[in-house]
């Protein structure tokens, strides 16, 4: 589904990611792990086209690396970004409507579905998204991303700054998505949680992939796990 080859990402003159390559197969959940500043979010930004990058990004057998942001999204990529970035001055429902901006035929049905999944969002449908709690905002951000019925979901730090109980809830939701065979690229600092869901994981440090493997290989490598959980 998504094949990234030799990706370099730039923030102005600074290169944040140095020639990494990885693959996300259809229906699988792949996670990018690593400490703060490893280049995980930069990689997500490069895939959506927000950050400048060189190298090849293949999505559904098509090179999308030169396309503008909106077009890439319309090909079936959706993102729940770091920091959630819900539209604070719009209501919950309006946020969801914007998420389905180019999926207008199904918007009403999907909104009803989401309200069923998250009754709390239904309860606050007309409330400004800025007044929601962090966990509610995270749910909204994921729901907004899925309003377009994407072919791949990029999830950037869904657990960041949330209470453990809420994190469990969010990861439960991700698990259900995975069971529905949604293709997911998950960026997480919390390696233990992420590995529980992932079919495959890559460890980034200083803009390079330093290790990769299945969840089992990571799990059986005690030194690596110690380092990862230490980082998390």
């Amino acid at each position, binding site marked *: 589904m998504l094949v990234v080859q030799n990706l370099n990402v730039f923030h102005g003159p600074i290169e944040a990611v140095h020639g990494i390559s990885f693959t996300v197969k259809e229906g699988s959940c792949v996670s990018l792990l690593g400490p703060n500043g490893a280049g995980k979010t930069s990689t997500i930004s490069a895939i959506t086209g927000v950050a400048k990058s060189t190298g090849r990004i293949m999505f559904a057998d098509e090179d999308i690396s030169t396309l503008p*942001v*909106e077009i890439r*999204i319309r090909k079936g990529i959706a993102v729940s970004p770091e920091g959630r970035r819900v*539209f604070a001055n719009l209501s919950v429902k309006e946020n969801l409507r914007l998420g389905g901006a*180019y999926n207008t035929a199904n918007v009403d049905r999907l909104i009803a579905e989401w309200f069923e999944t998250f009754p709390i969002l239904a309860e606050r449908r007309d409330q400004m998204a800025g007044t929601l709690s962090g966990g509610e905002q995270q749910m909204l951000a994921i729901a907004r991303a899925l309003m*377009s019925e994407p072919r791949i979901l990029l999830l950037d730090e869904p657990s960041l700054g949330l209470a453990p109980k809420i994190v469990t809830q969010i990861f439960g939701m991700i698990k259900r998505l995975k069971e529905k065979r949604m293709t997911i690229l998950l960026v997480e600092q919390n390696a233990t949680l992420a590995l529980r869901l992932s079919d495959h994981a890559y460890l980034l440090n200083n803009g390079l992939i330093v290790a990769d493997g299945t969840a089992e290989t990571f799990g059986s490598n005690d030194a690596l796990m110690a380092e990862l959980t230490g980082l998390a």
Partner: protein
Amino acid sequence: MEFVAQQIMNALSFGAEYALLALGLAIVFSIMGLVNFAHGEIIAVGGYTMVAMAALSLNNPLIVVGAAILAAAIGAVTLERVAFRPVRYADPTTGLLTAFGVSIVLQNLFLLLVSPRPIAVTSLYFLEWPIPFVGLRISSLQLFETITTIIVIVVMMLFLKRTVLGLAMRAAALDFEMVRLTGIKANRVFAAAFLISGLLAGIACVFIMARRGSVDPHLGFDPVLMAFVACVVGGFGSLPGAVIGGFLLGAIEVAMLVLLPQSLGGMTEAFVFGSIALLLIWRPDGILTPPREKGDKQ
């Protein structure tokens, strides 16, 4: 009584004009941080379109009004495409200076291609007649202006609440990148913002022209200066702020005209700007924006 009613009508119609223009400035500013000083020249484009209509002997008022509004809208969208696209993501100062440059170019083009002198436009005189209203006489033009502005504001609100593009424009004021990440095309949002600001300027142009009866290259400069102040009062980029600021400014200006002694008549503008400067010291972000510390994230 008649005097008070007349002054209230004056304040409302002044305020309506400023609100229309301020809304146009605010919608562009909220999305791209551009203080569009060339807005005044968009008004002049509408005015000169009326001259052109007269030259073509098209005197049907509907055609004249429609053409002026359409021309202003096309003018605004063209400016976005030609002049403001390169500075789309630049800092506000770069945008402001670009807008000044565009404004100078357009004013001088009018001067060069048409005439430096005012040209009379008579096709809108029909809008002005006295209306008897519970024993008072009210200017029809002022009534039209106030009612039109209220209708426009309601339509704008519906647009911003009900349509996806409207939602996107509100969201873009906060986080443009995230709007693009929902797959909405940036170009469409920018074009829509300029289209709306052009339409609003076109509508304002009709009333300005009906009142003044002539167009010259500087037609829009003073009204836009005031609209700019209205935006500042309401909090730059806030749409409700622009409307409130516009009407407030209309009220202040009429109050100054009425209350200042005759001998200080020439100082109205200075007093208006002085009170705005004081307001900015008290509330640097305008009256509708809560005070915010530097470095705060939204």
